[in-house]
């Protein structure tokens, strides 16, 4: 029996900031101090506060250490584990009160407003040990469904819960299952899991798979029982190695424990899951392209109808849900639809996981009830914008979504509200932008992404997005005209209406939503040949204010292009023809004499 558990984040974020080395240091130090029979080191999934990784939480106290380095480990072991004195200087500062007493994590601004359902086990269990999952009621929902409920009752519960697809579309999950449930036991069917998380800045699904892989397996088995399928596939990106490994381990363990395989819980129900690795094409997140890819073909979408519920994988009825959607299912089965409906909003019950990124203090993963406002997420949970800068917009939904301007920061976030303001929920990437972000440039960034990722099957998407991008490039290089703006709107509408799949149909959204809310920025680029945020290089000029310049020559020495001339103690000036607009001069000037605009 171990008196203390040292939980070290083994998610991708903390691993890349060195949590492997921290874990190894703990293991070594614990052996050196002879604590190896008293203290256990466990690698977990994501705690959410990725900005402060590597994260180490020590139980029974629940002490939260942030940014732990291997050099710190000996001190933590000696002081905390041996002598019972937490190392205050290494604690997450929000947990330390003024009188040096330690607050619980639930009282910090980052966690206070969160409600963890999909992420409930992330950071709490060892994802590579099925028994720890079982200890937190794991597989109890599958047991309940198989032994106490009929397949129709399972579907009805999911339907009543109001759970909607967390991959972005927001289609009611129960309805999807219902559409695929005909002819149970007569035809072969499939249950698929979409873990092809491709939006730039989104990592919710990865974290669920890394931190709690069994909940996805359990939910897929429940779905299999509900529609009458005995085979599942998880389609996951090959560039998520930790997630893939943990999922693989989890599937093996589930088979060993008889929770996958034949006659689960002594019933007639049999179910197994295989993993299919995706090569990282964004379009494979689209349902028909994903299934085509599992079949072994090039991942391209096809026309719908027929919808996958009737004719999906290998031409059989198939349901496809996203990782986060599945992560909610076991809890809904165990606690009931009413419990789930008690959170969130009327039309979007439950919670949503967001991956916070961009210009925000607490980069990381948060799960909040639907209906939480953007302001609460950005300012309270996210800790606001670093460097005292002003909030300008938040981008949700990745390349398919749009920008929410500061004026709409109090909008309660749910599927319908986001659609109404020209964005979309998307899978949950939330990128925060400050005043230094150029909205035309952002639209261009996302469009570059879709141009790259367009599979090329249909012309509106293949050619249309490329032409749209060229128009944006014209504007950011200062050559745009008002006619181009009209062309953009016309072309965007055309692409939306005529593309074959979701990728093309939503590709113009970043452009349209920035045009809707930040039209004046487009106009500044076109009419005044000016980039108000100072991002678009072609429109920038750097200037030295002769009154402020002391002639220290620092800038001239820093300039890689030799564009700055002037003699010592005399004001310098910049040769705009030679200037490459790198900004190095501005960074080195100690007198604030250099400005851009």
């Amino acid at each position, binding site marked *: 029996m*171990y*008196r203390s558990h040292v939980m070290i984040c083994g998610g991708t974020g903390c691993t890349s900031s060195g949590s492997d080395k921290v874990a190894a240091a703990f293991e070594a130090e614990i052996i050196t101090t002879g604590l190896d029979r008293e203290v256990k080191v466990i690698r977990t999934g994501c705690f959410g506060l990725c900005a402060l990784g590597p994260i180490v939480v020590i139980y029974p106290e629940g002490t939260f250490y942030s940014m732990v380095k291997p050099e710190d480990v000996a001190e933590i072991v000696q002081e905390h584990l041996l002598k019972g004195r937490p190392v205050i200087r290494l604690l997450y500062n929000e947990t330390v009160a003024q009188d040096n007493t330690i607050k619980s994590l*639930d009282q910090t601004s980052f966690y206070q407003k969160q409600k963890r359902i999909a992420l409930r086990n992330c950071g709490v*269990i060892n994802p590579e040990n099925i028994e720890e999952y079982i200890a937190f009621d794991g597989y109890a929902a599958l047991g309940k469904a198989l032994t106490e409920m009929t397949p129709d009752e399972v579907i009805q519960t999911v339907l009543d819960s109001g759970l909607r697809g967390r991959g972005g579309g927001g289609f009611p999950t129960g309805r999807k299952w219902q559409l695929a449930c005909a002819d149970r036991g007569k035809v072969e069917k499939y249950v698929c899991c979409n873990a092809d998380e491709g939006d730039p800045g989104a990592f919710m699904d990865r974290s669920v798979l890394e931190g709690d892989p069994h909940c996805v397996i359990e939910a897929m088995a429940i779905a299999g029982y509900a529609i009458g399928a005995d085979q599942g596939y998880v389609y996951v990106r090959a560039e998520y190695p930790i997630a893939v490994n943990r999922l693989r381990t989890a599937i093996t363990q589930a088979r060993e424990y008889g929770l996958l395989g034949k006659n689960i819980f002594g019933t007639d129900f049999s179910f197994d899951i295989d993993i299919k690795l995706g090569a990282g094409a964004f379009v494979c997140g689209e349902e028909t392209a994903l299934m085509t890819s599992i079949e072994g073909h090039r991942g391209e979408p096809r026309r719908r109808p027929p919808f996958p519920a009737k004719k999906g994988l290998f031409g059989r009825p198939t349901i496809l849900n996203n990782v986060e959607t599945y992560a909610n299912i076991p809890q809904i089965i165990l606690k009931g639809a009413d419990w789930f409906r008690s959170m969130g909003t009327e039309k979007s019950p439950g919670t949503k996981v967001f991956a916070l990124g961009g210009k925000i203090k607490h980069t990381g993963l948060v799960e909040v009830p639907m209906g939480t406002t953007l302001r609460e997420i950005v300012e309270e949970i996210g800790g606001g914008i670093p460097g005292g800068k002003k909030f300008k917009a938040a981008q949700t939904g990745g390349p398919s979504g749009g920008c929410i301007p500061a004026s709409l920061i109090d909008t309660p976030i749910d599927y319908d509200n986001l659609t109404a303001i020209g964005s979309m929920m998307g899978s949950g990437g939330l990128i925060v932008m400050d005043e230094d972000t150029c909205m035309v440039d952002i639209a261009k960034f996302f469009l570059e992404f879709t141009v790259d990722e367009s599979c090329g099957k249909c012309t509106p998407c293949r050619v249309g997005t490329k032409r749209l991008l060229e128009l944006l490039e014209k504007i950011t290089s200062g050559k745009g005209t008002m006619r181009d703006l009209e062309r953009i709107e016309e072309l965007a509408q055309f692409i939306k209406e005529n593309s074959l799949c979701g990728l093309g149909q939503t590709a113009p959204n970043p452009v349209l939503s920035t045009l809707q809310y930040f039209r004046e920025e487009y106009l500044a680029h076109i009419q005044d040949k000016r980039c108000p945020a100072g991002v678009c290089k072609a429109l920038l000029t750097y200037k030295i204010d002769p009154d402020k310049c002391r002639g220290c020559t620092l800038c001239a020495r820093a300039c890689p292009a030799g564009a700055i001339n002037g003699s010592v103690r005399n004001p310098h000036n910049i040769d705009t023809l030679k200037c490459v607009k790198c900004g190095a001069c501005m960074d080195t000037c100690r007198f604030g004499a250099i400005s851009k605009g």
Partner: protein
Amino acid sequence: MKSLQELAAIRDRMRQTVNTREPGQNPIRVQVGMATCGIAMGARQVLNAFTEEVARRGLSGIMVTQTGCIGICQFEPVVEVFVPGQEKVTYVYMNPEKAARVVAEHLVGGKVVTEYTIGQAGREE
């Protein structure tokens, strides 16, 4: 997995292990003084004895934890027991056998082992 009972058996066995990670659900706190003075007098064995005895009896709602020097080094090993709504109890001159008795009588039975408390044992010295 052939039955729900089998699953429940694994869950119950593992509950003891994961209990440690739910500080919010463990209102009763047993705190062992583990500064240099305490360790020198055998506080670590006392701490482990508490952990093992609580686990062996399958008790829940109890957090066995440690703290630094309480300031009464002459009485080490010192153990404080916090039960919500009750006055703190301070046990002194503890050893693993006494720890097992405190678990049995105080934590399970709800009766303070008066003879080990600072009021009694401390005065006798």
